[in-house]
């Protein structure tokens, strides 16, 4: 990951911002028009967020801003100062490890090409934080702002339902777990 720690004055047409991404602080010199998506990808090397339509419809660029799923293509990076940004890299527990949601996506094969997947996983993380016992309809609603062209959504819905079930189970005393 490239960390920029500028000391001098920002270049012409650039401004200095501070972003908090996955718990780490970054000081960056960027053009004010830089979208949060481009900033994460090009300046911080966080390439898990993907450009799909760049006009706020497909959701492939989704990241969490203060825990809320947001389209990073529609937000300028300077607007994200003072917020806590979480990317897919931030919900991955560690090298070679998967979160329960990520593991559930693997279990149901809730993806094909993998392009919309990081965004779907982040949406699922945010959604399940508030909805530990979701219905199918609620899951469908939760992912309806994210387009997947490969799967027809069935195995994504199943992944989120499975993750919810496992996470609920994980909070029970071990003798009550399935």
């Amino acid at each position, binding site marked *: 990951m490239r960390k920029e720690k500028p000391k001098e004055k920002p270049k012409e047409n650039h401004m200095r911002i501070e972003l908090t991404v996955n718990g780490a602080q970054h000081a960056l010199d960027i053009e004010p*028009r830089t979208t949060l998506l481009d900033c994460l990808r090009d300046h911080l090397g966080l390439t898990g967020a*993907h450009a799909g339509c760049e006009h706020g419809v497909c959701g492939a660029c989704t990241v969490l801003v203060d825990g809320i799923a947001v389209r990073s293509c529609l937000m300028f990076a300077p607007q994200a100062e003072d917020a806590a940004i979480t990317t897919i890299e931030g919900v991955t527990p560690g090298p070679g490890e998967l979160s329960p949601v990520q593991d559930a996506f693997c279990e149901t094969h809730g993806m094909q*090409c993998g392009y919309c997947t990081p965004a779907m996983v982040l949406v699922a993380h945010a959604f399940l934080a508030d909805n530990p016992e979701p219905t199918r309809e609620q899951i469908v609603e939760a992912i309806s702002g994210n387009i997947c062209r490969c799967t027809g959504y069935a195995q994504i819905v199943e992944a989120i339902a499975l993750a919810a079930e496992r996470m609920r189970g994980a909070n029970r005393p071990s003798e009550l777990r399935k």
Partner: protein
Amino acid sequence: MSEARHRYVSSDRRVREDRRFVVGKGKFVADIDLPNTKHIALVTCPHAAARIKSIDKRAALKMPGVHYVVDGRELAEATLPLMTGLDTPNVPRRPLALDIARYSGEWVAAVVADTRAQAEDAAEAIDVSYEPLPFVLDAEQAMAPGAVLVHQAHGSNVLLDKTFVWGDVDQDFKESPHKLSLRVKWARSSTVPIETFGVVTTWDPWREILDVYASIQMPRYADQIGAALKIPSSSVRVHYDVDVGGSYGVKRGIKNTVLAGYLARRLGVPIRLIEDRLENMRGGDAHGPERLFDVDVAFDDNGVVRSMKMCALENLGAYAGRSPFQLGKPIGSIVGPYKIGSVQYRAIAVVTNKTTQDAVRGFGQGPTNLALERVMDEVANVLNLDPLEVRRRNLIRHEEFPYMIPSGTTYDSGDYHTVIDKVLADTNYAELKKERDRLRAGGKLAGIGIAACLEPSGGNATFEALLNPAITTSTFMDSCRIVVDGMGAITATMHTTSSGQGHETLVGTVVGEVLQIDPDTIRVARPDSLNSLPSGTPVGSRMAIMLGGAAFHAAQKLKAKLVAIAAHDLGIPPERAVYKEGSVFDRNAPQNKRTWADLVQIAHRNLHRMPDGFEPGLAVSHIYDVPTGGTLPTPDGRVQMYPCFAFEFHLILLSIDPDLGVPEIVRYRLGHDCGTQINPKIVRGMAMGGIAHGIGAALHEEFAYNDEGQLIAQTFMDYLLPSSHEVPAIDIIDHETPSPHTVLGQKGSGESGYLGAPAAIANAVNDALKPLGVSINTLPLKASKLGDLIAEARAKKGGK
């Protein structure tokens, strides 16, 4: 499903590719970050057709970060036109328009700058002077005498007009008591992956190698790049380990690559061209078929269709690469799953002033299946028979396989009636009709839709020779190499990119199955094109068959070599040596065995223990021909097209709000038979995703143009991809009729769902409209269109 027969094949195993995707560690082309990369933005033509009078680059070249501007003339002088499928030398296709732009959005010039934003700023500052020209958008108008010519030098807008007659069509029509004619239109849509096409390329003048990283899915990519840039194809190194963010046939950015490759050589820096959504939708040359069918069928009193005349008119857009061949592939299953005895097929392809097409999922089969299935429903209507019963009477029966259709292709296997029976055992047809009638009684329009369709699979290219006799390509191979290293670890290779089909899992599973070794321990790698064996790439629903077949045979070769080495070392005849899970033992004395480690030791380091004449090491490869391939068409246009035919039976219930026209799919059942499923999770995903894509094509998606020739669906706000709300819960009922032609009985599934969903939906909508006495045969069946149609019909009926 078949645990008894297989160890790993058909079992519910995870897909190995998924681990990198769920953590955002796929390696997509936009993630390729070469030092000093410069970025391209494009200048596009705002007119449907225009002469380019001048291009003033001066202001742009003075802007910050800008390095270069290239126009069509410079590029045309340095490169050759792109490869085309038909012999149409006066319809050259180039990355940038040369003198005349022929559709709105066509690329006219390219700017190179330090950042994409700077390149976009500069593109706006390029002053192109245009002289607008007359244009033609409609295929029938383009064919009419006196039509505006898209390519003057060609002398006509028709690139292809070929009629085939298989069997005695005239006699069959004369003898049949009933005939009907139907006009069906498949609207211009495409696969529209969420990742646009992208390419990063860099030229090394000392090694004379052009490195290409691209989100590509295309046969002969390196060949085509080399040909256009006038460098040997061995100077092109395509990196196949780039993950492709969806394709479904359409990611064929040859023009993007030639443009970027030229600039990389011209400027001596890495060049990156990642289409933005607008460039992709308008000028990415990634539209799919726009096809008008006129179908006539002759049938008897029982609804048995004896003969068919089908005319398919394709609106190609302004240029053609391989897209006209999408009229040829359906010839290999021109009668669908039915016993239609004779066929006349006329295939016409015309150019118009619309965006250029490329290959889309099914390669023309989806539109053809729509036309066939609409006709079967109309036959039922005419005779007042149940559409399901009409299909049962026409379907090829299980005992009739292998079955040769009039156009010369023999279908491998199928059990269509059983698949349908299985679906009906799950969903009571009479109950479904009652449910439809209850919806109707409640004030909705409601209809049942059926589609019984084939998915030709195995991806041969013999349709090329059918439509262009100058082409003599008779096969389309694929390959796998397996190397066991000195430590005993296994690496298998595949030699193309993937776009979500799980090919690494496929190779691992098949090699593991043959070697009886846990697939997860087998590394699957993708060497670049200079280190690869031949691959026909993942087109035509072929990789389970072709890459699976190559991996299977390579593993068999490895196994045979291990057995021979062990038998020699044990001093027994090879037929007494038994392979089990990586070890080989003496059948007569099982305690005498050579383990995997022993065999690796012999092959790598104890060559004195090898049988005479054996190559050292444990490296094998197999290049696999398409089963049943290797023949060219007969003079009357009969040929064995694809080897395998998967079957899908769609049964749906759909309701329409009569005031708003909004259709809603209430029930969706799919019966699916693609033979042996190598990985059931992957097959299910393909079918589910295919149905979703088919729902889009049927109800929502259209690259619509206005009368000025402007594409009016340029964004995802007007080109509507189905969201999770538009895709209902779907139940899939599997059946398994193995193919006799493939190593494990597998058939293809990459186009499943998509090939029948639009037909089933169109039939359901028409069943719903039947009480109003109207019908609709033009996709997409948008709510606005249905609402108007319903209102008009009601007004005519004097209803509310």
